[in-house]
């Protein structure tokens, strides 16, 4: 005799969610809300005399077809379609954001070094290289600096000029190009899945290495020499000059990226059909 498996609403909803789709069209919050809707609908339909399974099937039909739902939800969870302008934008943005993090790390490590917490050649070298401490101070901090040696291309930018530039350029990037903080949120949400996020980080890593903005500004070892000789021969040691060059560079990238970014602006979304 046949012994059918009893209908499990939770399992049915889980399978429905699984079948429905994944980010970026649907985020976890969307799926949970749709599941909540199905439960409410099933409860209501059961009062009309339908079995739980029948009520579930009816509720699923009423909530809409997968393709239609996906299209409508995609409007509020836009996937970022990479294009050259958009890539250029994130090239610049990624580079500058990296610089902020880099500065913070170096600042913290410098404080640690000065506090005597740690005596590290690389740390002292980095601190001297970005101009947080002078070469003389770096030499005082410890013998490892001497052991490491002072690179011939050691350059000490004016921290004030760099700080002002970093702040201004980041505000410029975010505000001018994006036009709204909502798009930044949409971009971050598009990296929900771990693989996607990892790919995004790898891409940003490449951006940091390849970005002319970084090469001209931060003189990251071989990159500085490469930048001086190949990419930006016009760049001098004048920090204001460098800042101006970078600001112009970023402005161009921002202007290029603006149309692509506007496409994913929530303000441009058509309202979903009722």
């Amino acid at each position, binding site marked *: 005799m046949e012994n059918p498996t009893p209908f499990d609403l939770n399992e049915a909803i889980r399978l429905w969610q699984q079948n429905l789709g994944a980010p970026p069209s649907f985020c976890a919050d*969307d799926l*949970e*809300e*749709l*599941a*909540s*809707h199905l*439960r*409410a*609908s099933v*409860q*209501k339909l059961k009062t009309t005399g339908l079995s739980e399974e029948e009520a579930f099937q009816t509720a699923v039909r*009423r*909530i*809409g077809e997968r393709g*239609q*739902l996906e299209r*409508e*939800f995609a*409007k*509020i969870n836009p996937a970022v379609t990479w294009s050259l302008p958009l890539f250029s934008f994130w090239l610049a943005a990624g580079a500058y954001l990296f610089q902020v993090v880099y500065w913070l790390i170096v600042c913290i490590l410098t404080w640690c070094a000065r506090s005597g917490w740690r005596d590290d050649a690389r740390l002292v070298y980095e601190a001297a290289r970005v101009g947080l401490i002078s070469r003389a101070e770096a030499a005082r901090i410890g013998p490892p600096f001497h052991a490491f040696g002072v690179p011939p291309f050691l350059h000490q930018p004016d921290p004030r000029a760099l700080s002002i530039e970093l702040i201004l350029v980041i505000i410029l990037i975010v505000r001018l190009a994006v036009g709204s903080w*909502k798009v930044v949120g949409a971009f971050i949400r598009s990296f929900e899945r771990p693989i996607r996020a990892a790919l995004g980080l790898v891409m940003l890593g490449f951006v940091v290495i390849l970005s002319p903005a970084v090469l001209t500004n931060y003189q990251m070892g071989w990159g500085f020499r490469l930048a001086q000789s190949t990419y930006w021969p016009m760049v001098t040691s004048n920090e204001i000059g460098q800042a101006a060059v970078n600001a112009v560079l970023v402005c161009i990238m921002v202007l290029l990226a603006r149309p692509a970014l506007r496409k994913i602006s*929530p*303000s441009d*979304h058509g*309202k*979903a*059909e*009722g």
Partner: protein
Amino acid sequence: MLSKELVAASTTTLVLSILSEGEDYGYALIQRVHELSGGDMQWSEGMLYPVLHWMEKEDLIESEWRAAESGHRRKYYRLRQEGRKALRAEKEQWMAVHNLLIKLWKTQPRLT
């Protein structure tokens, strides 16, 4: 039954109007519209949520997850200040259209 276009055009206004009476969740909003319209207005159920999320992004409404009686979580929406302003503007516009149509139809001879 109302046309798809009219249903779509009135969705935001209807949501704002219902939420002006108090907070509610998605399914209840659909039920309320269905009841009030006497079944004339049918929302595609799943399509309401992108509209709600869009309205939330526009700061017209805000949402909060809370536990329902069943123990499962349910997302409640409520009107924000911007939403109240938007509702006032929407009311004016819909009333302008309504008054215009009433005037037109009162002055014109019956078509049938």
